[in-house]
């Protein structure tokens, strides 16, 4: 990787001031950024180490838990409040990466990790996300791991985060701080579909920092199911975060369904959720939800299997919540 200047500011004010410069980039855990820099996917002149900022805390709130952007995945997963009030979140975090990486990787960094698309990660291959206008080699290449929903002719890379899928089901809120001040962004507005600008992935503005994530405690029963090609230590082929609240007679009152591995963003399917509301969680309802989910699917040559797989995964996750 190319060399860079390194700063470790002690205040967010200083961090933001440094972060406005061109070629500047924040580093927290570094578990994704350093790989991208080693591979020449990203090149930066100034690396701003955020670890001295006071953004590490995990704090109970009246509505749930607030996760500091610098809280480590392992610490969040092990936190008693999280385990008690947000078991889905703990379950999801432990399904990701490896113990070593979870000790280093942060909540903010996890949300900003970049796609595993191999054409993106090899700096000498065509990729519109990395180099707008260079083409998308995945469209007609090796696209087993790519999106079946929400992609465009410019990009079919999937977002790799498990955490983001769970947070999408949990309707979390992302707090940011930039030169224009603090903002609050709902997780569903945080990620951007590729369209014809796949290089734009989130609502973050240049130099803006994630400071915290608010995760409401829903009272819903949930499960995160991650399907992958080996037993562990792998990104999801598809994943499902399902949250359900049932009322009298087992009728579903509320359903939240989010999916990983099938779309360029953590995919919330209101259509699938609608199929469950007001019905008992029986096979017919689950089947209808799966059909609604994959109705817009447009698979490529090697990933058509994701259509039945994600429906089966949904059925399995919901079956476990009956």
């Amino acid at each position, binding site marked *: 990787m190319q060399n860079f200047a390194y700063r470790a500011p002690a205040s967010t004010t200083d961090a933001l001031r440094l972060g406005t410069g061109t070629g500047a980039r924040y580093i927290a855990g570094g578990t994704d950024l350093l790989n991208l820099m080693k591979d020449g996917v990203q090149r930066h002149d100034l690396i701003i180490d955020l670890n001295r900022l006071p953004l590490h805390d995990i704090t109970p709130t009246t509505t749930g838990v607030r996760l500091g952007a610098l809280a480590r995945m392992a610490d969040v997963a092990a936190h008693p409040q999280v385990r008690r009030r947000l078991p889905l979140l703990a379950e999801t975090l432990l399904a990701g990466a*490896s113990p*070593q990486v979870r000790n280093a990787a942060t909540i903010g960094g996890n949300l900003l990790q970049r796609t595993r698309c191999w054409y993106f990660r090899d700096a000498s291959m065509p990729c519109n996300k990395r180099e707008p206008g260079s083409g998308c080699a995945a469209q007609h290449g090796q696209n087993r791991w790519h999106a079946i929903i929400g992609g465009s002719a410019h990009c079919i890379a999937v977002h790799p985060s498990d955490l983001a899928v769970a947070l999408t089901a949990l309707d979390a809120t992302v707090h940011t701080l930039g030169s224009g001040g603090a903002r609050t962004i709902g997780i569903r507005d945080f990620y951007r579909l590729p369209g014809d600008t796949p290089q734009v992935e989130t609502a973050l503005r240049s130099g803006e920092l994630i400071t915290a994530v608010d995760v409401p405690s829903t009272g819903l029963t949930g499960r995160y199911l991650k399907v992958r090609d080996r037993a562990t230590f792998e990104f999801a082929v598809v994943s499902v975060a399902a949250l359900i609240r049932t009322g009298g007679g087992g009728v579903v009152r509320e359903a939240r369904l989010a999916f990983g591995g099938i779309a360029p963003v953590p995919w919330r399917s209101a259509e699938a959720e609608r199929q469950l509301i007001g019905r008992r969680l029986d096979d017919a309802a689950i089947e209808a939800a799966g059909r609604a989910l994959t109705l817009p699917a447009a698979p490529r040559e090697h990933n058509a299997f994701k259509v039945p797989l994600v429906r089966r995964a949904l059925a399995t996750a919901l079956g476990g919540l009956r």
Partner: protein
Amino acid sequence: MFSTSRRTVLKTAAAAPIPALLPGAPASSGVTLTVNGDTVTRQLEPRVTLLDALREDLGLTGTKKGCDRGECGACTVLVDGRRTKSCLTLAVMQQGREITTIEGLADGDRLHPVQAAFIRHDGFQCGFCTSGQIMSAVACIREGHAGSDDEVREWMSGNLCRCGCYPNIVAAVRAAADEEQ
């Protein structure tokens, strides 16, 4: 045709020159690391990973580089007692922390119980992943994640072994965990 344009694109992409460093960009600076109880200072560029600093600058070659991408675990060290992959962090970011490598585990000639258990249970063959496996195992036991064979399997899965010693590694970690109780 798509493939034609792809080839054109490929050539341009491959040929795109990388801008040179900005004028005035830093060369190296003194980086102070505490490794196995010793505090040492070396002139390092900010881009040097902790792994490369240990191996190339401090001469601590027991920590291995298998992939340099956090995908194999051979470079696992303890930072303030927690296991982490030293290829995925910069040396300059680890100043002021206690770093423990495989060289710092034994007490003189007396092996750490995990090291001894790995020998007893033949938890390695070629030995290349072993430093990382052992550092990871020390943390795994300390975290309380060695309560059953399956728990060890899951919590040791961040360390790949290509010789295929996994069942022996599980036995070694379980034995060492029992011993420490």
